[in-house]
């Protein structure tokens, strides 16, 4: 599906998430009933074709879980995920997922764990093809060469094993694998976090180029706000499993509304020695194991009010595609 294909419904979202919840049962050491860990707490968002939704959050925010829910790696507890018109949650979810599977893909964080050390690079890249089946040997080989060229690696790489390559090269191989069956939507889970700074820029640029050339849509998960800024169209901020703010990129970075987003942006160190940062946000990320009632951020929020400790704020639109879950608004 190339970017040149524009229809009337060109802006209709291809990914729709409504009220998504994911809970894990955690067995407790000392006996007793298992505790419930709510990793994703009623989140909703859309992704439009050809755009990148940046998903930011710290540990425990639920961003990685969300990414995996979206491609069916983990089953949802409740809520709705619809991809390209197919609802993969609920009854018949499996069948729906099977229908759209070839349009979805995933790029992983760890360049050293995301490739099977026992398989040659060419076989790693061709795995989605092999699983789908029905390709001739020649077509398969041609596609592998094509993919290697797309990600900027020489053809000879296909005969080697992953351990012979550096982190950045392995990430390229992982991206080539993700592109094998020409997906339309790719979830990128911290794809550059494990790379050196000088390599991060190369991989981000590669992802941007591929998006333009191939009309891809991304869900780009990262904890590094600067990285997200370089690639996202819209940004969603998550905290302790909940969606706290969503906005188009420029709006989010220049005029964030949620106190957490503001604190997050402030806390990032800038390469500017003259900048004076305000005092760091105190407290810890709350446990998602036994969530207290009310807003998850209440304990650390500089603008906390009584209502915040009692009622969980629902995400509310405040105009221009900006959504905030905060009692201040």
């Amino acid at each position, binding site marked *: 599906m190339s970017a040149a294909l524009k229809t009337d419904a060109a802006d209709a979202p291809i990914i729709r998430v409504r009220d998504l919840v994911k809970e894990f049962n955690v067995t407790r050491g000392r006996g007793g009933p298992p505790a419930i860990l709510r990793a994703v707490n009623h989140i909703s968002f859309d992704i439009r074709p050809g755009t990148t939704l940046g998903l930011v959050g710290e540990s425990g925010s639920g961003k990685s879980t969300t990414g995996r829910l979206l491609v069916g790696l983990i089953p949802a507890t409740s809520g709705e995920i619809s991809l390209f018109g197919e609802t993969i949650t609920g009854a018949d979810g499996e069948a729906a997922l099977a229908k759209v599977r070839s349009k*979805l*893909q995933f790029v*992983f964080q760890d360049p050293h*764990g995301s490739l099977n050390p*026992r398989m040659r690079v060419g076989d790693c890249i061709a795995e989605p093809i092999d*699983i789908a089946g029905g390709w001739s040997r020649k077509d398969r080989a041609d596609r592998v060469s094509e993919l290697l060229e797309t990600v*900027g690696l020489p053809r000879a790489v296909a005969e080697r094993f992953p351990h012979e390559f*550096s982190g950045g090269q392995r990430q390229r191989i992982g991206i080539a694998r993700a592109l094998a069956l020409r997906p339309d939507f790719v979830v990128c889970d911290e794809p550059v976090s494990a790379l050196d700074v000088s390599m991060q820029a190369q991989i981000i*640029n*590669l992802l941007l180029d591929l998006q333009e050339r191939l009309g891809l849509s991304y869900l780009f998960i990262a904890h590094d706000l600067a990285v997200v800024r370089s690639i996202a169209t819209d940004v969603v901020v998550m905290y302790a499993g909940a969606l706290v703010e969503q906005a188009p990129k420029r709006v989010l970075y220049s005029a964030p509304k949620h106190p957490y987003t503001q604190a997050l942006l402030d806390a990032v160190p800038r390469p500017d020695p003259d900048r004076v940062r305000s005092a760091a946000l105190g407290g810890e990320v709350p446990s998602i194991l036994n969530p207290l009632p009310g807003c998850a951020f209440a304990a650390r929020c500089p603008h906390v009010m009584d209502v915040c400790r009692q009622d969980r704020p629902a995400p509310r639109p405040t105009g221009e595609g900006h959504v905030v879950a905060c009692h201040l608004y």
Partner: protein
Amino acid sequence: MAEATILASGEAIAARRRFRVLRKLLHHRSFMAGFIIVAVMVIAALCAPLTGVDPNQMRVRLRFRPPSEVNWFGTDQFGRDLFTRTLYGAQLSLWIGLAVAVLSGVVGAAIGVLSAQFRRLDSLLMRIMDALMAAPAILLAIGLGAALGPQTHSVIIALAVAYIPRTARIVRASALVTRELEFIEAARVSGASSMRIMFKHLLPNASGPLLVQSTFVFAFAILAEAALSFIGIGPPPPAPSWGNIIAEGRQFAVQSWWIMLFPGFAISLAALGMNLLGDGLRDVLDPRLKVES
């Protein structure tokens, strides 16, 4: 796209990293010592027919000859040449060792990956393995061997069953670790079936520990075959195996010590060789199989 296609000269694909394992093995003293010992024994076994002597031919006049120029290892109570018998014995004993290692490896590996992939099957299979492991391997083998009768293939089966649990455990442990790695998730995203994950991903990554374990099983099997033959449930005579020869020579241990000595020495040497090989393999393979930086 220019930046994406730049592979500046500094980004050389390190050709040095190829064949790393092979080179390390060649430099590892234990491994090479073990490899040479085993290689020599295998070659000797294969060359058994070259002696031109029939291992089963009895020459009554040459009974109980001590080692001499004519009979390098002496003769036994039937006048059979012990050197030839030991060489043919090597064929059988090494074959048994290999068969047991392969059989327990294959079945153990299958059980191991199945347990790792299907958690509900895991409890069932591992409890069965625990039950099998509760009995000392030799006793288990003796029991099974006695039940199956004194034949070569029952020896192989009995010994293999005794060692399947240990192999299964090792493969399962490795597979459980592998399962957590991201390339397994990558396969699942593309719709990989459990079969594919087990046999294309989990199993190959367990091959290192499996191989190491198999060398130890091989060594054990050679020793155990001797034990089984000793109590009469080994490969049936007159076919020579090292254990057979020792068993038959037991009655004459004092006067004709050479009957038991040479096959006994061969067993020790084979077991030693395999153990050294296994140690070397483990040293070289284990750290490499870890996700490296």
